[in-house]
């Protein structure tokens, strides 16, 4: 600034004849000072009133409405986000309970299956046992029968032999007693 001013003053001093012609700086000529101040005050105050009464409220209104819109949108977005999070939680909860239920169902069905299998098994085992018992009793019967039959066969054979050898019939009761005695000896 100072440099500019000094250059300027030196220039002015070196052109003294010009200054003489123009009577120096027009700024310092008071002829139109009143006019300039007057028109400045008139024009400046009129645009001041226009700006403060019309334009600034308009600009402020525009900026405020934009900010309001943005704030509202952000609020709405946060509400939506909250809702979404709530829904997600609900969903998680549902999934969790469903999983627990599924586990329960699997457990129960396995249990019932096992139980019914057990029952069936027992039934089958019982049947098998019965069959075995039946078979055993039959075998026992058969055994007893076969023992008796062998006794009778032995008696017959013995009487036949004796008849063939001795040519006479023996007393049946005595023979059967002897046979049973010998058979007891074998049995043991």
């Amino acid at each position, binding site marked *: *600034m100072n440099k*500019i*001013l000094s*250059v*300027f003053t030196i*220039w002015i001093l070196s052109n003294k004849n*010009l200054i003489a*012609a*123009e009577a*120096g*700086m*027009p*700024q*310092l*000529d008071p*002829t*139109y*000072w*009143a*006019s*300039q*101040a*007057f*028109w*400045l*005050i008139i*024009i*400046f105050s*009129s*645009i*001041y009133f*226009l*700006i*403060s009464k*019309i*334009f*600034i409220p*308009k*600009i*402020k*209104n*525009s*900026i405020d*409405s*934009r900010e309001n*819109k943005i704030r509202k949108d952000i609020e709405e977005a946060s509400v939506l986000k909250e809702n979404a999070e709530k829904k997600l939680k609900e969903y998680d909860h549902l999934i969790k309970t469903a999983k627990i239920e599924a586990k329960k169902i699997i457990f129960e069905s396995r249990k019932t299956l096992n139980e019914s299998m057990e029952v069936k098994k027992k039934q089958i085992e019982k049947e098998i046992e019965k069959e075995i018992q039946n078979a055993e009793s039959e075998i026992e019967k058969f055994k007893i029968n076969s023992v008796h039959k062998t006794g009778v066969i032995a008696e017959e054979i013995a009487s036949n032999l004796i008849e063939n050898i001795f040519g006479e019939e023996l007393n049946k009761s005595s023979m059967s007693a002897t046979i049973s005695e010998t058979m007891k000896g074998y049995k043991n």
Partner: protein
Amino acid sequence: MATNPMHQFNVHKIGPEIEINGIDISFTNASFFMLLSALLIIVFLVFGTREKKLVPTKIQLISEVLYNFISKMISDTAGKKAKPYFPFIFTLFIFILICNMIGMLPYSFTVTSHIIVTLTFAIFIFIGVTILGFVIHGFKYLKIFVPSGVPILLLPIITIIEIISYLSRPVSLSVRLFANMMAGHTMLKVFGGFVISLGLIGGWLPLTFSVALTGLEILVAFLQAYVFAILTCIYLNDALNLHH
């Protein structure tokens, strides 16, 4: 005419002579350029506020950026209490800015290069701020001349310095703008004259200077409008929040 760099600052009458109580208040070229700046501002603001779109149009965006810029400047320097003076600072800044910028056009007249114009602004601001200070703080406003935390021996000197600096506010405020505008425009004119006088051979150097200076002057035009507005904010801050 073209040879005298001061010629551009001449004020001359346009139209009839208007006189009130013997004071000449005729419409001059200075008044014409003030009016032109005012009309330009109004046209700009009319177009800037015509639409109220959520996504602003270009001119709407400029007006809103300007609003936010000045609003931030005021709240940064003078705090929340300065809110009622926002329209004044806004008008002041935009008016000085447009006047300076119109002055950058060739053959135009720079309103703010006249001391009487800047002095009118500065004296109005000075008186307004002083009245505001006394209205808000009463006689406590005189504390502005007595900074706290100064040794008692230095206090009289400091107080005198503070009073002088306070009283020189309108002078410094007005001369800063006026001298900047005048010096810049004179420089441009001088270099322009050199281009002619040095002719086709030597005229290229001052021409490049001229181009560079034009860029600088546009910067100065913005900067001085900003400085004027921000100093007004600082003076306003002194009156609103008594810090001393």
